[in-house]
C-alpha cells in the first residue's frame, strides 16, 4: 500500500481514508510506538492519548484474527430460557457462577438455574462452544424464549 512504514504519514493516512470510503468502513484505530490515532468517517482526524506501552499492532481496517470478540453472526447462538421464572447464575449464593464469559461449554453443561414455583430447574446448554456474553443478571425474571447467554459455536 504505502511506501512509508509510518502510520501517521499524511499520505498514508489519506490512503486509509480512501480505503475506508471504498470499503464503507466507519472507524479505524491506528497505533504505532505508543501513539494512536482514530479515523472516523464524518469526523475529524484526532490524536488520542498516548498509550504507555505498545499494544498489539493495529490492523489497518481489515478484520483480523485477533479482532475483539464480535458477538453477532451465524456462529453466535443464544441459550434461551425454556420457562418462566427467576434466573440464578450460580447453584447457591456462596458458590461461583456455573459459567462465565470465555468458558468452553458442551451441550450437557449446566448453565444456570431458573426457579419456577419454588422448583429450582437446572438448565442445560444444549449447544457447545465458547460463552461470549451473559445477558441477564442474578434474580432477573425470565420468560419463555428470553435469551440468557450468547455462545460462539466455533469456539
Amino acid at each position, binding site marked *: 500500500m504505502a511506501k512509508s512504514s509510518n502510520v501517521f504519514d499524511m499520505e498514508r493516512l489519506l490512503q486509509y481514508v480512501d480505503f475506508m470510503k471504498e470499503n464503507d468502513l466507519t472507524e479505524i484505530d491506528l497505533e504505532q510506538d505508543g501513539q494512536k490515532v482514530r479515523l472516523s468517517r464524518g469526523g475529524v482526524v484526532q490524536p488520542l492519548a498516548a498509550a504507555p506501552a505498545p499494544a498489539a499492532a493495529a490492523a489497518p481496517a481489515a478484520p483480523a484474527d485477533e479482532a475483539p470478540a464480535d458477538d453477532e453472526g451465524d456462529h453466535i447462538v443464544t441459550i434461551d430460557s425454556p420457562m*418462566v421464572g427467576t434466573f440464578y447464575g450460580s447453584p447457591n449464593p456462596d458458590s461461583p457462577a456455573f459459567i462465565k464469559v470465555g468458558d468452553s461449554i458442551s451441550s450437557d453443561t449446566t448453565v444456570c438455574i431458573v426457579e*419456577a414455583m419454588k422448583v429450582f430447574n437446572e438448565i442445560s446448554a444444549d449447544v457447545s462452544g465458547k460463552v461470549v456474553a451473559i445477558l441477564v443478571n442474578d434474580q432477573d425474571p425470565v420468560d*419463555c*424464549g428470553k435469551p440468557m447467554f450468547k455462545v460462539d459455536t466455533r469456539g
Partner: protein
Amino acid sequence: MYKRILVANRGEIALRVIRACKELGIETIAIFSEGDRGAAYLDLADEAYCVGGVRSNESYLKIDRVISAAEVGNADAIHPGYGFLAENAHFNDVCRNCEIDFIGPLPESMEKLGDKNTARKMARAADVPVVPGSDGLIEDVKEAKRVAAEIGFPVLIKATAGGGGKGMRVAETEDDLENALQAAQQEAAAAFGNAGIYLEKYVGNPRHVEVQVIADQHGNVVHLWERDCSTQRRHQKLIEESPATNLPTEVRTAICDAAVRMIREANYHNAGTVEFIVDKDHNFYFIEVNARIQVEHPVSELVTGVDLIKNQIIVAAGEKLPFTQDDITCEGHAIECRINAENPDKNFQPCPGKIEHLVIPGGLGVRWDSHVYAGYTVPPYYDSMIGKLLVHRPTREEAIATMLRCLEELQVGGIETTASFHKKVLTHPEFAAGTIDTKFVERTF
C-alpha cells in the same frame, strides 16, 4: 383491593380485562405465546411474559408457566378470561394454593356445575325447571329405553362431562336409541375422558336464552337480565341480543329469578351465566351454568350500564356488590355481532393473515371490543374471533338498523370476515320478526 392482576388470556378479552384494571388503578401482567409476541395490546400491560410456543397447550394452557408468571410478576390475583383455563377447577385450586386469588367462583362450585348431571340435580333442588330427562346417568340400553318411553321421543343423549355441543346425539325413535347411545358414549369418552351419559327430552327448535348473574361473597346475588343467543351455527353463537324479543315480561322475570335461585343453590359467587332453552309455548328449561365471564358479556353491560369485569374484580377482592337488584334496569336494546376471520362463502373457513387496512364503525350507541389494528397479523393458532361489534339503541328496530349501518362501515382489508354473513342474517324477515330459534341459521343459509 388488588395491586396487580395477571391476565391469563389473549386477544380481545385480555384487552378488556386490562382496560378494567387500568380504570380501577390496578397494575396488570399480561402473558403471551410466541404466536402473540408483538401484539400491541401487550404494551398496555405493565409487564408481559412469554409463556411458550404457539400452540395453546404449549403456552396459555400451561398452568405451571401461568402461575410462574404470576409469582415472578407479583400478581395478587389472576383473571382467567373465557376459554383456556377459565373453567378449569384444578387451575382454580392451584391459584388459591399458591395464595393467588382466582377471579371467579370457588373450585368446588366450578366442579359441581361442570358436571352436567350434578348441575341438573341442583337445579331440581332449587325449583328450577329442567328438561324432562333421566334422574341420573344411564347405565344400559334397557334403562335408556325405559326413560325414553317415559319422557317421550325424540330424546337427546348428552355427555355429563360435555360442553361446547360435543358428546350429544338425537334419537328420533326407539330403533335409533341403541346406536345413538353407543355413538354418544364413544364420543364422550374420547373428548372428555368420561363416557357417562344422561337423557333429556329433545326440545325442537328452541330458543337459547341465558341470564347474566353476578354474586359477591356476602350472599348478594343480582341478575343483569337475559340474552337471546339463538343465532348459532354448529353450536357456536354468532349474534346475541338483550332483551329477548317476543317474551312477555313475566316470562323473562321468571327465567331470571330461576337463574338467581340456581346460583344461590350452587353457592356460586362472581360472574356466571345460567343457560336455558325456551320452547314456543314459553316453557323454559335449565341447561347448564357457564362458570366464567362470557364472550357476549358486553350485551348485558350495554342494557344495564354495569361494568361486569370491574365488578368481577371487586367481588373477588371480597367487597360487596355496589348495587342491588332494584338498582338494575334493562334499558333499550343491544345486539352483538361476533366478527370472525372466516370466509362465509367458503363454509366459514378460517382466514388468518395480515389486516392491511381497518376502518371501525362509530357513532351513537356503537361499541367495538377488539385487539386488532391495521398491520396486525391474525394468528392461525387460536379462535377466529377478531372483534365484537355491538350496538345499543332505544328499540330493537333501531338497533338492527344501526348494526346494518355499522357492518357497512366496517372495513377489514387483507382477510375475510363474517361481516357479510351478519348482514344477511340481520336483513332476514325472521330476524326482524324475532322468531329466531337455534336451528334458524342451519335451516336458512
